[in-house]
């Protein structure tokens, strides 16, 4: 038994994790989701933008790998904007995001009868990352003369009065990489001082706290939990809310395994230096 626990086959752990994901995903039990101040800040800013009949720029910088975490944020933020008649301009710094965002726009625009060109515009992907943001800063329509469908941005109701990044009432970056702190803050927010909020994967969230404290970003949605909090705020439970059940159970399983590993380590394995 001692040797079995010290050198526990990883497949046993895999089985526990699989059960921890599958069973809670197939069942329903209520869990309390309390929106944090950082998530609420994004929600409140969109409410303010709605009161001004303003425009939001959303940079979608993620791919299929991070889709389970970020796509619920995309859907929730778009639903919030469309329900409050906030105009949306979407763009991508990651090419893989285009297909995912198109799906999200198709779904949410139908739900709220949002019209392309008058309520939202999708610009698609362009290369350049930081250079693209520098160009957008002073010459939005020159950087994006056309949208993804080939319409002139100068003719579209949403973008015809947008000449630079300062003209957006809020910029949101939904990201799975370093675009918020590596591109948008140094080359966009810091120079043009627009309001900036982000949604990112859970693993990225700790890196963003210095920018929150400095005021360079005003809100943060971190991982699936952040997405679930936003779903709670707009009162539309989705995949993130459902995902909280398996995630909660798997977190508990991992904690139990950590505790078990440490118990074995202190009881039997300490002198030998740990399991191999």
């Amino acid at each position, binding site marked *: 038994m001692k040797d079995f626990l010290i050198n*526990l086959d*990883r497949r046993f*752990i*895999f089985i526990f*994790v*699989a059960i921890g*994901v599958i069973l809670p995903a197939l069942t329903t039990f209520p*869990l*309390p*989701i*309390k929106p*944090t101040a950082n998530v609420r800040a994004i929600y409140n800013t969109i409410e303010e933008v709605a009161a001004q009949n303003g425009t939001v720029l959303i940079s979608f910088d993620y*791919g*299929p*790998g*991070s889709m*389970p975490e970020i796509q619920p944020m995309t859907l929730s933020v778009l639903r919030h904007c469309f329900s409050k008649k906030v105009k949306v301009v979407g763009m991508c710094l990651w090419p893989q995001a*285009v*297909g*995912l965002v*198109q799906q999200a726009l198709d779904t949410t625009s139908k739900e709220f009868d949002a019209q392309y060109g008058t309520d939202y515009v*999708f610009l698609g992907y*362009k*290369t*350049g990352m930081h*250079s*693209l943001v*520098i*160009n957008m800063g*002073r*010459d939005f329509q020159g950087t994006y003369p*056309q949208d*993804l*469908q*080939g319409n002139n941005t100068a003719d579209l109701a949403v973008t015809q009065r947008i000449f630079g990044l300062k003209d957006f009432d809020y910029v949101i970056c939904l990201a799975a990489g370093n675009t918020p702190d590596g591109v948008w803050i140094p080359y966009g927010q810091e120079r043009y001082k627009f309001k900036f909020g982000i949604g990112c994967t859970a693993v990225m969230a700790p*890196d963003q*706290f*210095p920018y*929150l*404290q400095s005021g360079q970003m005003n809100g943060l949605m*971190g*991982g699936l*939990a952040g997405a679930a909090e936003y779903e709670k705020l707009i009162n539309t439970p989705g995949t993130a809310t459902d995902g*909280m059940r398996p*995630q*909660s*159970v798997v*977190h*508990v*399983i*991992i*904690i139990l*395994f*950590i505790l*078990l*590993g*440490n118990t074995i*380590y*202190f009881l039997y394995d300490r002198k030998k230096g*740990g399991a191999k």
Partner: protein
Amino acid sequence: MLFLRRTLPLLIAFIVGTLGILIYYIPHTAAQDLEQELARWDRIIAAFAMLLGIYSLMSLHLNRVKRQQGGWGYSFLVFLGFGLMILFSLYNDGLGPFKPQVADSGPFVWMFDNVQVPADATMFSILAFFIASAAYRTFRARTPEAAILLVSAIIVMLGRVPIGVLISDWIPWFSQWLMAVPNLAAKRGILLGVSLGAIATSLRIIFGIERSYLGGGE
């Protein structure tokens, strides 16, 4: 030849690097226009760099096939996937390559939705299993520092999911405090160190002290 291989790239790096720094601090319209122009050039170069990346990837896999290295059969899949997606992209759901890309229908979108999305998501989700296994084997309170890290990790793991609220309202609060105070302090310190390092490396490149980007083992 030495001029083209070494002196000219060093000269370009010096001029463009110095200009890039100077125009950031000059609020004059001419400087800002120049910055816009340089950024446009950079975007064009970035687009061509993609072609270079594709060439590099293809030649790597071609060599694997030629030398029949381990797993060389998978390299065929790279060519197959790349070739198919290029063809579907040019086909553009029947509109051809000179019309704006269709993003909601057609074989390109079908391949993306039914191959890339599930494959990529599956790869990423496997992490949950490996994290659990690695945590069991390696996350040990061997030292007081490791014990503090372990306790903090458990609090954050509980605080980030609703089950933490069920246990106690203090867990999410303490988790948030850990992120917003000790984590922030450490991250900011790391960030400052990395930024200073980046500035030093940039200056070394601009002034031609760091030349490894030229290649040739120098």
